[in-house]
C-alpha cells in the first residue's frame, strides 16, 4: 500500500487527525502517560549508561517474564478470574525482576565472574523459566494468553485509563526523584570510591538507581513489551550523548528524546492501528538516534569529520606558509624577515613544491586555497608573492613551530599529549614565564621575533 493510498483512505486520515488533535479522551490519556514514561525512561537510562549498567535493564525485563506467569497461575489458583489484573501481574514481574537484578549483583560481588557474563547467565535463566511457565499457563482453562502476551509485545494503543494513571504516576515520581538526587547519582556514576570516602552510602544510591530502573522497566513492559523496553531506556541517552559533553544537558536531552519517541509512537500507531505501538515508539527513537549519530554536535560522525578536515586544512596552510618563509629566509637573512620584506621576492612554485613531500594534487589544492584566502598572489607563470597578510601569518607559524621544536628538544619530560601543534599555540600550554624563558634561550631579541631554526632547513624535503 503506497503512502498516497494510505492518505486517500478517508477513515485512516480521520484516525490520524483525531490522534493529532487529541479529540479522544483515551488517546489524550495514553499520550500523556506514555510520554511521561518516555521521559522517565530516558532519565534513568542516562544514569544506567553512565554507571555502565546498560544491560541491567535487559535483565530486569526478561526476569519479569516468570513473575508474570507465576502471578497469573497463583492468582488463578486462589481466586479464579483475578489472574488478568494488571496490578497482580506487575507485582509478580516486580518481584522476579528485582530478584534477577539481585542475583546479578550477588554473582558479581561473590564470584570472579565478570559483569556481562553474570547478566547473560541470569537473563537466560529467568527467561528460560518464564518461557516454560508460559506454556503451562497456555494449558490452563483460563489461560487465554493474549492478555499476558501484551507484556511481551506491548499494547500501548489499548491501554486503559487506569493503567495509564499508574504508568504516569510512577513516571512522574521517578522524574522527581532523579532530579532530587541528581548530583549524588552523578557522583556515584563518575567516582563511586570518592563518593564512599565522602560518606555516601553507595550501596543505597546504587539500590535507588536499580529500583528506579526496575520500576520504569516494568511500567514500560505494558506499553512496548519486554523485548523492546530496554530500547526505551537506552536509546534516548545514547542519542543524547552525541550532542553534548554536559551531564545536565545530556539528561534533559535524553528525557526529551524519550518523551518525543513515545509521543510520536502513540500518535503514529493510533493513526495506523495495524502498526504495533511498541515497535513504532522504538522505531521513532531509533530515527532520532540515527540523526544524532550523524549530526550530533559533539560526537556525531559528520561534525567530527568536518573538524578533522578543518584541522588538516589549517595544518596544510601553515605548512605551506612555513615553506614559503624558509625559502625567503636565506635570501633576506634571519634578522631581516619583516613582513614587508617577505612580500618583495617571488617564490617559484616548482622550488616550493619540492621543499615538502606534498603529493601533486595536495600541493595545488593548498596553493589554490592560499590564493583564495589572500595569503599568496600569482605574479607570473608559476611564480607567487606572499601578501602582507600571508607574510605576517607565515612569520607567526614559523615562530610557533620553532618554539615548539626547541621546547621539545630541551624539555623531554613534557607529556606528549599536551603537544597539540594544530591548536593555536604554544602560549596555551606554557605559561608566560616559561615562554619568555624559552625565547631568551633561543636568543629571540623581541617578544615576537622569529628565532632561527634549531636544525638545518630543507635537507629533509629535497
Amino acid at each position, binding site marked *: 500500500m503506497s503512502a498516497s493510498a494510505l492518505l486517500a483512505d478517508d477513515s485512516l486520515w480521520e484516525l490520524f487527525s483525531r490522534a493529532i488533535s487529541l479529540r479522544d479522551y483515551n488517546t489524550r490519556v495514553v499520550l500523556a502517560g506514555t510520554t511521561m514514561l518516555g521521559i522517565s525512561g530516558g532519565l534513568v537510562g542516562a544514569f544506567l549508561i553512565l554507571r555502565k549498567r546498560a544491560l541491567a535493564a535487559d535483565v530486569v525485563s526478561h526476569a519479569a517474564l516468570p513473575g508474570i506467569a507465576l502471578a497469573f497461575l497463583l492468582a488463578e489458583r486462589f481466586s479464579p478470574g483475578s489472574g488478568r489484573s494488571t496490578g497482580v501481574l506487575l507485582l509478580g514481574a516486580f518481584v522476579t525482576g528485582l530478584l534477577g537484578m539481585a542475583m546479578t549483583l550477588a554473582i558479581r560481588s561473590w564470584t570472579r565472574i565478570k559483569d556481562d557474563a553474570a547478566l547473560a547467565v541470569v537473563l537466560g535463566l529467568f527467561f528460560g523459566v518464564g518461557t516454560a511457565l508460559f506454556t503451562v499457563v497456555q494449558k490452563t482453562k483460563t489461560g487465554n494468553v493474549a492478555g499476558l502476551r501484551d507484556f511481551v509485545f506491548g499494547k500501548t494503543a489499548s491501554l486503559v485509563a487506569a493503567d495509564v494513571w499508574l504508568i504516569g504516576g510512577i513516571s512522574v515520581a521517578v522524574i522527581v526523584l532523579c532530579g532530587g*538526587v541528581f548530583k549524588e547519582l552523578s557522583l556515584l556514576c563518575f567516582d563511586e570510591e570518592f563518593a564512599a*570516602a565522602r560518606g555516601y552510602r553507595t550501596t543505597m544510591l546504587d539500590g535507588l538507581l536499580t529500583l528506579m530502573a526496575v520500576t520504569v522497566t516494568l511500567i514500560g513492559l505494558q506499553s512496548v513489551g519486554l523485548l523492546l523496553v530496554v530500547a526505551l531506556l537506552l536509546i534516548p541517552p545514547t542519542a543524547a550523548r552525541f550532542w553534548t559533553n554536559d551531564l545536565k544537558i545530556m539528561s534533559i536531552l535524553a528525557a526529551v528524546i524519550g518523551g518525543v519517541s513515545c509521543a510520536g509512537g502513540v500518535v503514529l500507531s493510533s493513526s495506523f492501528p495495524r502498526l504495533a505501538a511498541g515497535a513504532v515508539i522504538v522505531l521513532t527513537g531509533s530515527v532520532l538516534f540515527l540523526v544524532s549519530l550523524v549530526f550530533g554536535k559533539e560526537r556525531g560522525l559528520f561534525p567530527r569529520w568536518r573538524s578533522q578536515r578543518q584541522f588538516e586544512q589549517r595544518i596544510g596552510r601553515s605548512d605551506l606558509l612555513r615553506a614559503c618563509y624558509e625559502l625567503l629566509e636565506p635570501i633576506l637573512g634571519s634578522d631581516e624577515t619583516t613582513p614587508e620584506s617577505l612580500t618583495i621576492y617571488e617564490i617559484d612554485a616548482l622550488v616550493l613544491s619540492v621543499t615538502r613531500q606534498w603529493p601533486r594534487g595536495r600541493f595545488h589544492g593548498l596553493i589554490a586555497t592560499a590564493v583564495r584566502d589572500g595569503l599568496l598572489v600569482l605574479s607570473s607563470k608559476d611564480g607567487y608573492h606572499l601578501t602582507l597578510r600571508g607574510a605576517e601569518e607565515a612569520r607567526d607559524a614559523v615562530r610557533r613551530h620553532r618554539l615548539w621544536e626547541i621546547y621539545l628538544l630541551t624539555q623531554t619530560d613534557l*607529556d606528549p599529549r599536551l603537544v597539540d601543534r594544530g591548536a593555536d599555540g604554544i602560549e596555551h600550554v606554557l605559561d608566560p614565564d616559561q615562554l619568555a624563558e624559552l625565547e631568551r634561550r633561543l636568543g629571540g631579541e623581541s617578544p615576537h621575533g622569529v628565532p632561527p631554526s634549531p636544525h638545518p632547513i630543507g635537507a629533509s624535503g629535497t
Partner: protein
Amino acid sequence: MSTSVVVDHEAMQEPLPRPVAAQSPASMVPLLIEDVTVAYHRRPVLWNIDYQAPSGKLIAIVGPNGSGKTTLIKATLDLVPRAAGQVLIFGEPYSQQRHRVGYVPQRTSVDWDFPVSALDVVAMGMYRKIGWLRRVSRKYREAARQSLDRVGMADFADRQINQLSGGQQQRVFLARALAQNADLYFMDEPFAGVDASTERAIVEVLRSLRESGKTVIVVHHDLQTVDEYFDEVVLLNMRLIAAGPTAEVFTPENLRKTYGGKLALLDQLSEKMAQPRSR
C-alpha cells in the same frame, strides 16, 4: 605461621615515636593507625601496621608494587574492611571526621570520558557540604573555581574532562580535594604519569598546604624525589618496614629491606645519595 612473621616483623621494626604520642592529646594526632591488618580473599595484604603521622608534615608512603600502599589508604578511609586494628583521625574514627579529610584517588580509577567539566568535578568535593536536594550554588561554583586556580587550572574550568591531558586531569582531582578544605589529605600516586609542569604545580600545592599546617600523606613511587619533596617517609611492604623523618629513615639499608631483590634501582640511588647534596 602468621605468628612467626609477626615476631620477625617486630624484631625488624624500628621503635615508633610512642612517647611523643603520649604527650600530645589524641585529637592533635592527624592519623593514628593501630595494629591494622587487611586481607583480600583471606590473603593478608597488610600485616599489623602501626603508625602515627606527625602533624603539619608532607609524608610519603613508599614501597614496591603490591606492597599495600593504596590498601593502607583505603583501609584508613573505610573503603576496604579491616580484618583487625583501628584507625583514628584526630582522635576519632574516620566516620566522625570525614569533613576534615581530603582524598585524591588514583587518576586511572575513573572514566574520564564522563560528560562533566573540570569545574563540575571539583564541585563534587563539596557535595556533602552542599547537602541533599540542593543545587551547586554560585558560592560553591566560585569556591571550585578558586581551587582550580590553586592548581593552575583556572582557564580550564569549563573544559570537558575528556579534553584534558593526564597531568591536567590529575590537577583537577587535586583541586577537588582542595575544595574540601580539609586538615588531612590522602593522595594516591598524584605524580604518576604527569608532565613536568604538573609535577611542579602539585609540589607547590603540597608546600602551601604544609605552610597552612595541613598534613598530607602521599603514595609516592619515584624514589629519586622522595628526599626532595617529603619530610617524612613510611616504608611499606605488607608490613611497616620503617617510618619517620626522611633523613633518618630513607636509607639504602631500609630501602633494601623494603624492595628486597630489586637492587639495580637501589644501587643507583645509594650512589646518588653518597654524592654531596646540592639544593
